């Protein structure tokens, strides 16, 4: 459904995208994970044809971004990160406005707007100005505004930022329903649990590059990903850290806790305990962290996802 080849984009000489490539099948739920400034929004902006790439190729459906951006715009929907709705209009008026650009008859548009308001639990307040809505309700109308023309591909750029749990669950249910109905969804997020719950496949983007891609299981089982032995010490001097890292280079220190990355926890745990005893470190806690997106991301990028 979506083919991206060697996409590059620079702003004032700074490379935002350094030649990313990925493919998304029709009906797939694809998560794009990365910290701030990684290139997620730039990627979405290019795919939704409001930003021209410096080079590279994008094909959505059977349309090339270069040759027929207008055709692409007709089959995609974009849920922006901002609450891009008109506060002075009612929810219903907003939906009617945003759906009015897609050659849908007024009557059909009205039916779709009402159906979406019902789906998002806003039917009772559809005649109320959006400025009176809570943050969660605004998020819901923000998403609904992108669905009026029933797009084949939906780009969602961090659609649940600053939302209450109730609204988040409702949004997840709607998104999952859309996915089940066959919509292709590209979803960027900071939240690991969202990606783990929703995405069929995940691309991890950092510094303008896709550094890993696959299903959650594929990412967990890849050679690059290891399990983590997290040891917390009573005291940890700089000298102690140097000694540890010279013996075990694949580690990351966070205050008095060190994450040791291990391809085989069973054998490596005893080695590490012995090493600490030799250095004279007093261990107060040991934790084995199974590979999940958080640890995978940390290992791959050296950063927390919310950095």
């Amino acid at each position, binding site marked *: 459904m979506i083919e991206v080849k060697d996409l590059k984009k620079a702003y004032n000489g700074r490379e935002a995208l350094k030649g990313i490539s990925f493919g998304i099948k029709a009906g797939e739920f694809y998560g794009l994970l990365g910290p701030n400034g990684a290139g997620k*929004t*730039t990627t979405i*902006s290019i795919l*939704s044809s*409001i*930003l021209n790439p410096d080079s590279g190729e994008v094909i959505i459906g059977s349309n090339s971004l270069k040759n027929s951006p*207008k055709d692409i*715009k*007709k089959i*995609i*929907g*974009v849920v*922006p*990160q*901002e*609450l*891009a*709705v*008109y506060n002075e209009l009612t929810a219903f008026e907003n939906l009617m406005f*945003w759906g009015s*650009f*897609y050659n849908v008859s007024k009557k059909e548009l009205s039916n779709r707007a009402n159906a979406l308001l019902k789906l998002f639990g806003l039917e009772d307040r559809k005649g109320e100005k959006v400025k009176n809505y809570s943050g969660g309700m605004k998020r819901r109308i923000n998403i609904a*505004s992108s669905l009026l023309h029933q797009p084949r591909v939906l780009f969602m750029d961090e659609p649940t930022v600053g939302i209450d749990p109730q609204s988040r669950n409702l949004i997840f249910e709607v998104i999952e329903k859309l996915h089940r109905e066959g919509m292709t969804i590209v979803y960027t997020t900071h939240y690991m649990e969202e990606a783990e719950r929703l995405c069929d496949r995940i691309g991890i983007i950092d510094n303008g590059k896709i550094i890993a891609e696959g299903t959650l299981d594929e990412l967990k089982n890849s050679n690059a990903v290891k399990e983590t032995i997290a040891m917390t010490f009573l005291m940890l001097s700089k000298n102690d850290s140097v000694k540890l890292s010279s013996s075990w280079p694949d580690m990351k220190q966070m205050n008095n806790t060190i994450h040791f990355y291990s391809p085989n926890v069973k054998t490596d745990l005893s080695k590490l305990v012995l090493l600490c005893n030799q250095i004279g470190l007093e261990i107060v806690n040991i934790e084995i962290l199974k590979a999940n997106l958080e640890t995978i991301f940390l290992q791959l990028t050296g950063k927390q996802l919310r950095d």
Partner: protein
Amino acid sequence: MIKVALKDLRIFLKDRRSMLLTFAIPIALITLFAFAFGGVGKGKEDSKVSLLISDLDNTAASKEAIMLFDSLKSVSISTMSLEDAEKAIKKGKVSSVLVIHNGFSDSLQQGAGLPLELKYDGAKEIEVGLLQQSLIPTIAMLPFNLGDSKMMMGNRLARIAGVSNLDKKQDIQFRSNELFDVISKSISENESKEQINPTEMFIGGDIKMTKLVKATNDNQLGLIQAVAGTAVMMLLFSVVGIGLGLLDEKQEGTLKRLLYTPLNPLNILFGKMIAANLISIFQLVVMFLFASFVFGLKIGEHLPGLLLMIIATAFACSAFGVLLASFAKTKQQVQGLSTLIILVMSAIGGSMMPLFFMPVIMQKAAVISVNYWSIQGFYDIFWRNLPVLSTTFLSRILVLMVIGLILNSVAVIMFRKNILKLA
């Protein structure tokens, strides 16, 4: 706290536009008002009221009279044929012409009323009033300076007394001569040496006043000035509000969201332009309706011209608002820039006060202002009573439309440039 202050200062110093707005606005306004009110750039000629004279008498006496007018410090004289002068007045280029009719010299010698006529543009009544005040003392002095003031005084007194009998007339003339001599002697002995002459007491500075360009709303000069001047100035402020709406959309993300749709990006701007035009037309219509209902401005007789001028004014002003929004990056920039530009245009364009109160240099600069063309157009309609198809009126419409087209074109370029920076 200090770090926050330093950070804010650093940001401010890096923002050239903010710097410009912070300092350039006050400096520009001080300069502007110094020009307008303080006499800066005001040469000797600027302070004089222009007076055209058409000498139909063409005698030594009339030429001497012209020289006397020319010696007035407050009046700048130029002569012209009556036909040319009347054309210039009708085109609104000059306010009036003083006509020295045939028989001026004879009247002067006989002490009869002087055949002087001031033909003027009804739309410039205040300006003509000032001129009249400057002329009356000199006209009153003409018989004293050029003619037989004793005879004239005697004739006047005989006329006041209603005497037609020749003997009685001669008696009055004789007594008048004695009185004139006594008064003249007293004046010459007056220690205060005040510049008084006896003729002033008896001879009025009458001058026939003729409106060449008749205004239907004779007593509504102030009203027209207030409605047209204020309407255009306030319209400029409100179109800036419309422009701010565009920036609101940009900042709140709805503009970006519009770009995600199949809508042509330029259509977003064109939509804004249309909305701005409609709102502007609506605003002007409401203002003139208000002036009509509340102050009795007669708009019914001028509907075609008024509608045409409202549309042209709305087009030019709304283009100004959209241009500002396309150019500026933040609401603060628009507010600063618009305040500066609107105040400048309104001050020099005649929104705040009639143009003839200003020095010549400011009157010439007025043509760069949208306000000038609109206000003059409304004067054409309500005061000069010009027909819709008159060249003068149509030229003002044309200028406003060209201004609108130029501003809209620049807005399109700037909008395109800014769109690329959106994502």
